[in-house]
């Protein structure tokens, strides 16, 4: 089956969640069956209100080998984090 059925990535929006989150993958012949399989595998315990399935082949991923080049430069730029502002007391919780 794994040889003839493509892989799909599954995204679920939970009851309280605003966005769909990646939960895993599965094999299915086509989009309709992938959606049903996702329902059967990933929403058995009331996890979801909405499901997306996306062919894995449609995802372009960064190369783990490029990790240093891609992500390390940000480590030294702490000023990008919004933690240097003084919030006046009157503003309260933001």
């Amino acid at each position: 089956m794994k040889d003839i059925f493509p892989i799909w990535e599954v995204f679920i929006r939970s009851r309280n969640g605003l966005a769909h989150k990646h939960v895993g993958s599965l094999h299915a012949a086509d989009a309709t069956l992938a959606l049903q399989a996702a329902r059967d595998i990933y929403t058995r315990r009331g996890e979801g209100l909405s499901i997306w399935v996306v062919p894995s082949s449609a995802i372009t991923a960064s190369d783990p080998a490029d990790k240093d080049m891609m992500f390390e430069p940000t480590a030294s730029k702490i000023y990008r984090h919004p933690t240097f502002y003084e919030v006046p007391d009157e503003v309260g919780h933001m």
Partner: protein
Amino acid sequence: MAKTLRVNETPLVLYCLRRADDALILGHRLSEWCGHAPMMEEDMALANMALDLIGQARSLYTYAGQVEGEGHTEDDFAYWRDERGYRNALLVEQENDDFARTIMRQFLYASFADLYWQAMVKSKDETLAAVAAKSEKEMAYHVRHTAEWVIRLGDGTDESHERIAKALEYCWPFTGELFEADESEKGLVAEGIAADLSSLRDQWRTNVKAVLDEATLTMPQDGWMQKGGRSGRHSEYLGHLLTELQHVQHTVPGAVW
């Protein structure tokens, strides 16, 4: 070996047992696939459908016990009636055979049960109406899932077409019994408790035909139909199924998890 349960089959008790037995036996059949389905994803799908049906059976057995008033529990009905005491339609006890047979059996039953439970939502019996409201959604999904497979197998390869066509031919003579109602049931229909099964048949045919057409399958003619399950006359397969289903309770009566 302990007791075989003697049930006081008043019309409403018998009515509940017939529906409960359909659900339990079909649920058990589906559970036989657990760990054996052609792919993991479908293994889960079949087990999910099995659990829907076993849940329906539990509610209905519990209610049958309340109506009967003899203190019988859901387990008593499931484990301590023999083959002749079971009231399920013959379709649901038929063996799984291959995946195509399992899917076709489920499709034909669910197409019936979906319409049936939709009609039962309006039952004057509050408990049955509540079971119906829950079951109708479950069966609607069984129809959707199995219909997608019927279409793909029918309109798939030569081999898948041949297998699903053979499954259709095998299952068809068992479909008539789903719409049968005896005198005890007709009384409940008159009281507004039970749905009139014969009134569902045209819609069932229309729904089934639409899927078969898309699957490039030919709807069989209604010829001679098998029956007997509703009064305890079963095919050779039910006894073997019950032997397995009841084995633990018959070996260690009262065993619990």
